[in-house]
């Protein structure tokens, strides 16, 4: 409840930022990217809430970006295209989720990594559709919403508010799930899958649902990104960064918490871009790596979900 209020308050403050910055395009772009990463980290956290640790969210981001770009270039309206990309990501994620039938824990994580690498490789090869290494350019810009002041919906400010809205939606979805039966099923399967199934809970449909929801949000971010940057390339949207960063950010911010992953994402990204980047231009990614290493070694409480889920022999 309290975190819900904090979220609303935070959203309100963030909504007032663009006018305060005088719509400075660079800072708006930086912040909207931070919000997209925060939404992806929240989506990653939603999946982790149900148990699986993913090393392959780039697959879903890329599916969303390519799905939306192709649909948009094919003549669909950008909004419809982003939605379609989201569905592609959800379907792809559910497909990856099928791996959970045979794989658990670290091996499921490796499986998601392999899927992401596979998709990236295929996107590079299948150039008739994806444009190969050069990617797809000329994606139309998002249309201006007629019923809102132009200054809020055009260009960088528009992207800013859309990314913020998407982040809000991702957090809202997670908050709803945590309070519902779905969240109870996710948490029970995460904590002790066998016990939960002995109580009549069938794991697979719930795991697939978690993958699909997480993939949906991640792919919507990908679709929005494609329409903001207006080009997609395999090495850009299937970049391993979209697999590594959400993991870093969510574990750093606190697994399974509502706001931790999003807050950590925004803080780490801004720290990295605004502080580390000017200081050590080539090395600024080191911050993420160090954050992840520190959290694994020194904050085992922040990794409560990681410490379980291993296989044990039960007497």
């Amino acid at each position, binding site marked *: 409840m309290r975190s819900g209020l904090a979220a609303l308050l935070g959203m309100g403050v963030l909504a007032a930022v663009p006018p305060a910055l005088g719509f400075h395009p660079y800072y708006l772009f930086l912040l909207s990217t931070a919000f997209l990463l925060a939404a992806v980290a929240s989506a990653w956290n939603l999946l982790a809430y149900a148990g699986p640790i993913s090393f392959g969210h780039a697959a879903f981001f890329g599916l969303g970006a390519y799905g939306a770009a192709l649909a948009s270039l094919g003549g669909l309206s950008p909004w419809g295209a982003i939605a379609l990309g989201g569905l592609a990501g959800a379907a792809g994620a559910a497909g990856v989720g099928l791996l959970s039938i045979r794989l658990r824990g670290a091996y499921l994580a490796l499986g998601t990594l392999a899927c992401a690498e596979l998709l990236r490789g295929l996107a590079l090869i299948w150039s008739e559709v994806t444009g190969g290494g050069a990617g797809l350019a000329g994606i139309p810009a998002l249309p201006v919403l007629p019923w809102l002041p132009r200054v809020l919906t055009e260009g960088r400010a528009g992207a800013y508010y859309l990314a913020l809205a998407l982040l809000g939606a991702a957090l809202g979805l997670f908050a709803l799930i945590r309070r519902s039966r779905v969240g109870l099923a996710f948490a029970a399967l995460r904590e002790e899958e066998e016990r939960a199934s002995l109580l009549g809970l069938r794991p697979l449909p719930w795991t697939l649902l978690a993958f699909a929801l997480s993939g949906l949000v991640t792919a919507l971010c990908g679709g929005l990104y494609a329409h903001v940057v207006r080009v997609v390339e395999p090495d850009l949207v299937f970049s391993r960064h979209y697999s590594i960063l959400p*993991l870093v950010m969510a574990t750093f911010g606190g697994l399974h918490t509502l706001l931790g992953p999003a807050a950590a994402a925004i803080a780490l990204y801004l720290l990295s871009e605004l502080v580390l980047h000017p200081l050590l231009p080539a090395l600024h990614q080191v911050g993420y790596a160090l954050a992840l290493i520190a959290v694994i070694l020194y904050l085992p409480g922040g990794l409560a979900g990681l410490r379980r889920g291993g296989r044990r022999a039960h007497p």
Partner: protein
Amino acid sequence: MALGFSMILGVSRSLNLAHGDLVVLGGYVGYSLWAAAGLSPVLLLPVAALALAPAALVWDWLLKRTPEPKELSSLVLTFGLSLLLQTVMRAIWRGEYRLIAESSLGASLQLGTLALNRGRVLAAVAALAVVGLLWLALTRTRWGQAVRATSIDPQAAALVGINVDGARRSTFLLALGLSGATGVLFATLHYVHPAAGVELTLMAIVLSIWAGVGHLRSVLAAGLLLGMIEALTVTGWGPGWREPVVALMLLGSLLARSGGLARGHAH
């Protein structure tokens, strides 16, 4: 290369996702020494292996401290280390593609009607020699006994007076040394670049699954098989297919051996 990966897994139940990046690091170190000092590749092998010794100590120290379940936490931790290494390598070598283009290696070796590239022959001979030596060391020495005992049951090994920490540390030193040397060999045959490590890691995992952890002779056979599949893929469909095929093999192998990598113990 997979040997190092599978030894670490055996001894510390840690999956080292930065393995390929360490190999690439070895390649870059080798390249720099070769370019700066003109060392011959044969001399570069031990030098690059030694150069990774500090990294081995760091890896050992970090992986000893990962919480349970070891496999998953070590995976996350080394994912971070992989990112760290890639960033550092990109900062130092600016993402350039490097090749140890020693002309003596490019020459072909005439064996009857067979013309062989000397670099490849050197790589093959070195790999065989390493596997042979390692096999001898693991089966014939006290150190080998300690390492094998540690990977089967560290607590029992400690009870019978084996220095488990020492065995672990020396395994890391050896495994990362192998990676460094492999990196040099790799750099004589292929261009190295900072992002090449992931594919190498995936290959090491595939090999470990195929061969079963710590089985030296089967690692050799699996390595040959993987090399052949890779070569066929590249010549048949083009180099772009290499990455997806490796990823596909990893998926297939994981699903086929879902009991887990650590199931087969060393010997």
